């Protein structure tokens, strides 16, 4: 196990160097100049030139890249071109919002997804199963911005059960939960649908397995058969899907964060791309990549706990 972790962390470092190079170069090669954007349409040529010099954009590209990488190793992600704020500070400000939202959404997704998945597998080919399939298909296909806007109109504007948007309170307070409810449902539905589909097919496979028939034959209670014998064995692919979905959610969700006015990493990234705020884009991409790798590592470790047959030694 320790070997796996060390190996993965070593891979992570290589991956991050690769990603930082690709992001750095693609941002610099892409059209659009951060200095002209800061200056705006009213800036003169001299204004823009002074800003460019000030940002160090006149240095050779590779020099800029090596300076940047040197900074990373000393824990310095640089400063925003636009707001002059430290990149690490900007990310630390926003990441808790994204994390809160990701956790709330994945909880919604797991609760809805796993339950409906299992029930539809047990009630295979009944009306309930059919209904779940249709709803799951809907959940995957409904665009987030539409679902979000509809939820706001119904539950925030008309019924006023939840606030329209914003995420200012911690998630363990009542107010915080209220603020998280609608965005978490919006985001969770898509993942729930995927998890439900996966749980259903995994369960169906396991339910027909010989050892389940044997368990039933020797008179084990149905509840125990499902919970102990089926569920645990059906969980491996489901956990993979949950892990992948959680990884994506941690990367920030641009649309949901915008619709619900949540100041998260996704919004930071899209704003920074629009402003050609290179240090900010690089910093947030590195964060997202790191988290994605870490979540997948955790998923791999969880496998070994759920299924003792899996070993990494």
């Amino acid at each position, binding site marked *: 196990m320790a070997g796996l972790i060390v190996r993965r962390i070593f891979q992570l470092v290589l991956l991050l160097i690769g990603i930082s190079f690709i992001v750095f170069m693609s941002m610099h090669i892409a059209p659009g100049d951060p200095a002209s*954007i800061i200056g705006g349409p009213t800036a003169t040529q001299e204004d823009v030139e002074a800003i460019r010099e000030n940002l160090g954009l006149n240095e050779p590209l590779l020099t800029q890249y090596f300076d940047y990488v040197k900074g990373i190793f000393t824990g310095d992600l640089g400063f925003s071109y636009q707001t002059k704020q430290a990149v690490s500070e900007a990310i630390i400000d926003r990441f808790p919002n994204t994390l809160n939202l990701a956790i709330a959404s994945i909880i919604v997704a797991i609760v809805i997804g796993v339950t409906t998945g299992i029930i539809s597998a047990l009630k295979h080919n009944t009306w309930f199963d059919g209904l779940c399939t249709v709803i799951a298909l809907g959940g995957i296909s409904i665009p987030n911005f539409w679902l979000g806007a509809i939820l706001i109109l119904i539950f925030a504007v008309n019924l006023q059960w939840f606030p329209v948007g914003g995420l200012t309170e911690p998630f363990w307070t009542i107010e915080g939960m209220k603020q998280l409810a609608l965005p978490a449902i919006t985001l969770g539905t898509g993942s729930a649908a995927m998890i439900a589909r996966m749980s259903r097919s995994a369960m169906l496979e396991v339910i027909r397995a010989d050892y389940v028939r044997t368990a039933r034959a020797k008179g084990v209670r149905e509840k125990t058969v499902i919970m102990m014998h089926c569920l645990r064995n059906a969980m491996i692919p489901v956990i993979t899907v949950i892990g992948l979905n959680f990884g994506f959610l941690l990367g920030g969700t641009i649309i949901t964060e915008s619709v619900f006015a949540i100041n998260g990493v996704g919004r930071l990234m899209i704003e920074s791309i629009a402003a050609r705020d290179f240090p900010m884009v690089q910093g947030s991409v590195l964060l997202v990549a790191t988290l994605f790798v870490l979540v997948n590592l955790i998923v791999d470790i969880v496998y070994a706990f759920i299924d003792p047959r899996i070993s990494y030694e």
Partner: protein
Amino acid sequence: MGKKWFTSLLAVLFVLSLALTGCSSSSSSGGSAGDAKQELTYATTSKVVGLSPILTNDSVSSTVIEQIYETLFVRDSKGEIVPHLAESYENPDENTWVIKLKKDIKFHDGTPFNAESVKYTFDKLKDPATAAPRASLLAPVSSIEVQDEHTVVLKTEKPYGPMLAALTHSNAAIVSPTADKKQDLMKDPVGTGPFKFSEKVNGDDIVLVKNEDYWQKPAKLEKITFTVVPEVSTAISMLQTGKVQLIDGLAPELMPRLEKIKNVETQKVDGTPVYYLAFNMEKAPMNDLKFRQAVSHAINREGYLKKLNGLGVFSNSFIGPEVFGHPGDEKGPEFDQEKAKELVKANGFDKKEVKMLVANTASYMNMAEVIQAQLKEVGIPAKIETLEWGTYLDVSKTGDFDITIAGWSNVTGDGSELLFPRLHSANIDATNLSRYKDAELDKLIDQSRSVVDQEQRQEILTKADEYVMTQLPVLPIYHGIASAAYDKSVKGFKMEPTGQWSLYSVHRE
């Protein structure tokens, strides 16, 4: 049996949700009714870049900066320039501006406002090491001298007509020198204004509180919050439920929804911005006056206003009705499709497709589509090329287009501040997108900037505008309207033609 029950429940839920959605726009909730707390929340679609007037040049930042800092001069409700932090001014000669300052004014940190602070601010704005985005504002000023505690003298190499207009610009607001040396004003601003910075919350939201020691009567609002809501429809829902009390810069397509909400009022004021077509004068056929005339006759500009739900004004002049220098009678080309068709046929303008470069903002893209259709009607083939804003800024400056749609917000409200950046040959490769080089117009623009007498400037600018509207390096499509929507409990809100506003005299009932 169970199946039926579930299906009917589903149907009821579906109908209910549709009904709720349907009636949403007409329902009013007025979360603020009876709540006379003197607090106000304003929602903006993008974040504040920073709070130093010297280092920023975006409209959202200047919205906040306007509440914290003040300028030496301001425009009053009639558009006249009047002293604000300044007491009076005089011109002993055309190159000297002696500005007397008001006494007993203090910055939020206790530093006295005086000639030294004005000198410090302007020197810093002009210093190339500062890399101020609007350093050009005071470029004609060659020196700033302190004559005594309350008198500052600005000297120019050549007479500079729009000096006072430049001094009304929020980028020329005065900062506290002690604070600027000690801290980063981008994060921790210190001005003389009616509100002072309190804290930044939740990453991007900014909270200001009343400045009790303001040099005039203190503001009525105790606290204002600037919050970022990227989705305008979400911001409107927040306005409807009372979480937000003020939004501005309304888009035409939102007006019908806003006007139906019971607890919301909208305000529209004729504004200083102009939205126009810029012809690339270095390329054929755009460099042919007949082509530009054909395009001008082909586009039904007054008709286009109907699409804007009252958020635009028509004026057949480049300098708009709310901008200093607007000509009394407008002499631009009329909408005349037959004339356009004749010109197109006689000169073969139907043979070559023109490329129309557009930034990907909704209003510009809509305008481009209408123009493309109307050009097609008279036989001019046009294709639209859409670019993301950051890329557009670069490409439009290099002249890689035939026609482009551009805008100019004109925060100083002065005609020279439109003609010089947009049409003077000194600004080709930068703000002069038409790449227009015309000795006669250059001369008129230079005069309008160098004459100090305002009546004379009006005459020169009128002449310049008439020249522009006959030569047509640009075709103004419409002039902007500054707009805002606010909760009915907000009283005393007044929008300026430049789209700026102060919350100084606002209160809630």
